């Protein structure tokens, strides 16, 4: 007795092949779109205080290091204590409702809950100090923060992206005193400048595992 017709077997084969194709395609698509340049880039959460980097760093021309003091001394650039805001805002816009949380923090001693934007996994040990002192500008990883009203992530911060630069650092290097000049434009080929800096300062970015993974 035959329960199924002969063609069923063929249909089944075609269906199975299609299923496999869709599955494979789905996985490929998923892997493709879940790369950091799609999932991470553009992240721009709402911060508890609407601080505008464009106003402070761009229009007013404040140096990055006025607030991010750790960048030349430590692995972390650091988020400034509320006290730093109050250096100016004790006088400037001292009653602005947008600064209420800063004033409250300054008075109560409770921290402001900033939302982290640039995040690396726990097994990655990035050191701001090493990069800034070598002449890698803030702009290389963080973009034109001086033009952002709300900071967003502009680079994927993926391992491949890190290695792109570690393998070919010259285009991203500049004299260390200019690292916080986000609008700086080299007057000649940046690769040439980078090569000279590498030779003079002995810059050899590591590409081995323990450079970042410890």
């Amino acid at each position, binding site marked *: 007795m035959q329960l199924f017709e002969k063609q069923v077997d063929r249909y089944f084969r075609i269906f199975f092949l299609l299923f496999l194709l869709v599955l494979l395609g789905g996985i490929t698509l*998923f892997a493709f779109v*879940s790369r950091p340049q799609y*999932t991470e880039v553009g*992240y721009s*959460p709402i911060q508890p205080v609407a601080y505008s980097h464009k106003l402070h760093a761009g229009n007013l021309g404040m140096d990055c290091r006025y607030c991010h*003091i*750790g960048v*030349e*001394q*430590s*692995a*972390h650039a*650091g*988020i*400034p*204590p*509320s*006290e*730093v805001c109050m250096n100016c805002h004790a006088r400037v816009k001292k009653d602005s409702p947008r600064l209420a949380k800063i004033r409250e*923090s*300054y008075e*109560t*001693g*409770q*921290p*402001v*809950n*900033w*939302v*982290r934007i640039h*995040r690396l*996994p*726990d*097994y990655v*040990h990035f*050191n701001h*100090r*090493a990069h800034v*002192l*070598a002449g890698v500008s803030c702009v290389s990883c963080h973009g034109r923060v001086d033009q952002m009203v709300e900071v967003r992530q502009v680079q994927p911060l993926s391992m491949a992206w890190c290695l792109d630069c570690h393998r070919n650092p010259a285009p991203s290097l500049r004299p260390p005193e200019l690292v916080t000049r986000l609008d700086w434009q080299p007057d000649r080929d940046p690769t040439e400048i980078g090569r000279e800096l590498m030779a003079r300062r002995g810059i050899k970015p*590591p590409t*081995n*595992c*323990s*450079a970042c*993974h*410890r």
Partner: protein
Amino acid sequence: MSEHARKYWRSLSEAAGDPEFRRWLEREFPEHASEWVGSRRALLKLMAASFGLAGLTACRRPEERILPFSKGVEGYVPGRPLYYASIMTLGGLSTGVLVETHEGRPTKIEGNPEHPASRGAATAFVQASVLSLYDPDRSRAVLRVGRRSSWEEFEAFIASHMKAAGKGEGLRVVSGAIGSPSLADLRAFLLERFPAARWIEYEPLGREAEAAGAELAFGRPLQPQYRFDQADVIVSLDADFLGLDCLAPVWIRQYAERRRADSMNRLYVVETGYSLTGANADHRWRARPSEVGEVARYLSRQLGLGGLKAPDPGAPKWLTAIVRDLERHRGRCLVLAGPRQPASVHALVHWINYELGNAGRTVYYTEPVVRTGAEGLQRLAEEAEAGEVKTLVILGANPVYNAPADVAFADLMRRVPLTIHLGQEPDETAALATWHLPEAHYLESWGDGRAADGTAAIQQPTIAPLFGGRTAAEVIALLADYPQRRSYDIVRQYWLRQWKGREAERAWAQALHDGVISGTEFRAVAVSPDPRRLQALLAQAPGKSEDLELQFHPSSSTYDGRFANNGWLQEAPDPITKLTWDNAACMSPATARSLRVESGDVVELEAGGRRIAAPVWILPGHADGAVSIALGYGRTRCGRVGNRVGHNPYPLRTLNTQGFLRGLQVRKTGRRYPLVTTQEHHSMEGRPLVREATLEEFRAQPDFARKPDGKVDAFSLFREHSYSQGHQWGMVVDLNACIGCNACVLACQAENNIPIVGKDQVRRGREMHWIRLDRYFVGEPDDPQIAWQPVACQHCELAPCETVCPVAATNHSPEGLNDMAYNRCIGTRYCANNCPYKVRRFNFLDYHKGLQEVEKMVYNPDVTVRMRGVMEKCTYCVQRIEEKKVQAKAEGRPLRDGEILTACQQTCPAQAIVFGDVNDPDSRVSRLKRDPRNYSLLASLNTRPRTSYLARLRNPNPELAAEEGS
């Protein structure tokens, strides 16, 4: 060379060629490693769950917050560690430490190079003390008869209570040894206010016998201060001065510095158990505890003390040899007795040293830094019996657990109407106290203390009290209504009074900065022995008996029990027995045979009508006719880690048998107890790994260790790396300096976030320590010698692990490090299988899971916390290398030799570990690699390890060596 013909073995079953041991070795992985999921059904279930959960990964990462300070802190930059100079006190004596803090959390303790007791070294106890700070089982609240109360209520209560205290007739205070000058000052204040009160200092591991011996010999209680660096010949009578009887890490350094071939000292040890000191001896004899005193008497007579030069024809030959060696080195030798020996033995030893001209040279005497005594407890018990004690204050001590059994402290407490207990744990004593007060950890509080030589230093906090603890000084200030109430004020005011004048503030700042107050060490006291009293000691000869004897010694893990809830220490294998998470009744193979017991048999130990049960451990080299047991186990109320771990020997220990007891009865119970030891784990199967020679052999053939262990096949299938450029890191471990103390193992654990796995996991061979301290027995099982070898990743230039990793998770760095990328590892364990040194450790389970937040505070943020399923191993502390490289680069200078210290190297009290750049021919590590004693492990495999070893030397007495060789 005959050395290589000697047999090295780790356990009795290995020595005997037990087939069970072969089976253990030949398993590709330790127990249960190859069993993953029980069945096909379980596998399918897991797969289904994985598919289901896979969909969730598309969600965005969780939102993270950054919380900066409200107001900045001067000198603090987020991400940069801060270091504070402080002290850690154990048994009333302190040692200088530097505390590394990250974002306000102390994470790592190092020795303070400026402090004379430390000189940069830290012991295992110091290293592990930071874990105790974050112990979630610590006491968290003031308790009044077990119910939650508060400090305010206690303050109100004690203020009204003390008003009625009169002259303090019923007031008694029990504390540990007090070395702190400010607390001693406060005690004087209290006793002045309440003249009828009494203060008892009790330490279960006190050193009363030493001072009492000096009183017998010199007429006053004095503390001997040793100068091991000045001694050519050292005779230790059951004194474990390198191990658990060591009062200052600097002792080990002084000793190790004199192990160099050009000025090598000689160490004779007579002892009962096998101690670290015995393991490092050039000659060692086994003796029952009571026979050790006999040796002291022999020595005195043979040396002709008190004008009685009466060579004893019955004296064994080795004693005569020692005597001749001592006489040849007058003024340059040292005899010392252990704290377990009675005062009479100490008196004789003091006398011997005096007569040999050692006093003032290798040993000098000072006023004791601490004065403890168990007798005070006895009187307290009598007073309590008579109902005279109304208020009993117990400060930072746990006498219910560790007081002599015949004091019956628990009964004593029940007879006192008001008992106040201050302690870090809600422990055995707290359970019986009317009031229990949480005590602050030393990393949380102000204080001061004195080192063994009297040097004072300030203890400064590195974190605010986590659980609202206060110090003993603060409690006494409440009791005595002292003008200052906070520890900071008490300590500061005390020292400002000492210094006086305008310079006082400066001196205070300097003391905090340096971590030591210079010029405060105790002055040497001139001594002269009283021969009449000493002759009386010589005359008394205790009757010989064939009774079994039981010796009590400190534990390498819990000390006297106070570290019982510290998982790092509990899991650290005992240096000699390699037992973890347990103590045992150790005895020699011969004693075990005569008692018809085996390792793991539970026996009942009985003496004087008291009895305890304990498992037997057969320890090669133990004295016959004696049993020794480590104190500090079998706690019932210390916390989740240490409760009911091991067996408590305190119930056998009485006022008169603090060191050892005679007349021990051992009865077999027929029960078995699982003891877990790491001695057979990760064996390298009898290859010549430890190499040693005598000093004479070394002089005849300096490169004896260079002899290859087999034919070296220098052909490699793989592309070789070029190591000619840049830094090339390497390490040398001097086996001649290494004393096997475990400090490196604990330092590595603290630095590298190494998890604790527990007794059951250790039984399966899954311990995670990156450094394995191999202990080899050499020679006959009854009386073997011991050799050490710390083994961590060897960082092979041609690393066998790298070539077998299917995902390239372990790779070579251009600086010669064998890198391990945890995030890439998929856990095949091929690398561990292919490692000839067995140094790779696999996370079989997620050992960091389920930890409370407070426990995570101990993590070093510079090192990844590894998850389940990844391999890990020594990294040469790559985080420290990178930190110093960035530092040097920032300062625009090349790295200096010795700037990078690995965690193990930094803490090593013997300075046995040297790390550096092997490409720099002038670096210390390069110079040591050119030493003729330098050799690599398993060189015949052509792995070219970056870690190499300097062969060990022994310096036997030629008179005795000839005899032993025959």
